[in-house]
């Protein structure tokens, strides 16, 4: 379901530049940029009154999920210091725009990977809360 919603939002996008490094692995800044991009798309879509109430609610749920993952990546970036990351972030957005235009499947896959990484990490930490005596 999440993949379907992400894919639908990616299709909505219209953008340009050249398609560069589409298959490159996505780092924390890349994941943050992708999540922000999808959250913004999701918010626009959730406000679209031409869509059914159910579709809007689904999109809203998706935005909520993305926001959780965003907090995770922000903490990871935060831990690396306070350096200027604007160039890396701008490059990530240029790449996202190109992918959204020409290869939205890759963009969806990359974003799903970002979300999965967050979910795996979340589970790992949550598991550390469970008593080992059980």
């Amino acid at each position, binding site marked *: 379901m999440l993949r379907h919603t992400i894919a639908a939002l990616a299709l909505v996008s219209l953008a340009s530049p050249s398609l560069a490094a589409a298959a490159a692995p996505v780092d924390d800044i890349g994941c943050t940029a992708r999540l922000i991009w999808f959250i913004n798309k999701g918010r626009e879509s959730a406000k679209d009154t031409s869509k059914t109430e159910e579709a809007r609610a689904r999109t809203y749920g998706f935005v909520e999920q993305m926001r*959780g993952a965003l*907090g995770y990546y922000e*903490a990871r970036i935060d831990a690396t210091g306070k350096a200027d990351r604007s160039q890396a972030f701008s490059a990530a957005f240029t790449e996202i725009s190109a992918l959204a235009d020409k290869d939205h499947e890759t963009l969806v896959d990359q974003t799903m990977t970002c979300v999965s990484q967050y979910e795996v990490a979340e589970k790992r930490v949550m598991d550390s809360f469970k008593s080992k005596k059980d």
Partner: protein
Amino acid sequence: MNKPAIAATLAVLLSISPSPAIAQNAPTETPAVSGGDLGCAVRFMFMGMTLDKAAQDTTKSESARTEARIAAADARRDQAYFLARLELTPTKTDRAEEGLAIFSGFLKLSTDEMIKEIDLCRDFSRQHQAQVLQTLKKKEAK
């Protein structure tokens, strides 16, 4: 394999496992509540669950439920922030006892005290998230 070769192999393996950034970047500054990052994660888990319940409570008005749902999403983002910080703290794989003790202590607080502590955690998380977002923005030419 001779000793120097083993040492060299180990050095390479250690340098790539499992996530080099994690040990180097373990957070040093912590929020001012009992349990630090773990304490805040526990507080937001509690808050998220409470808000989820409120969002599903059909005896509440639609606007109150929507408000609770939005607040639950906010809490989840803050929770994720602290979970990531915990993940960046290496070698800690058993937090059950500590987490439970923090949770029990938290439940003994008055509602006002609970809110105050959650605010401290939220301020910490939001301030740091805002700083990160600031470093991502293009700087205006002066």
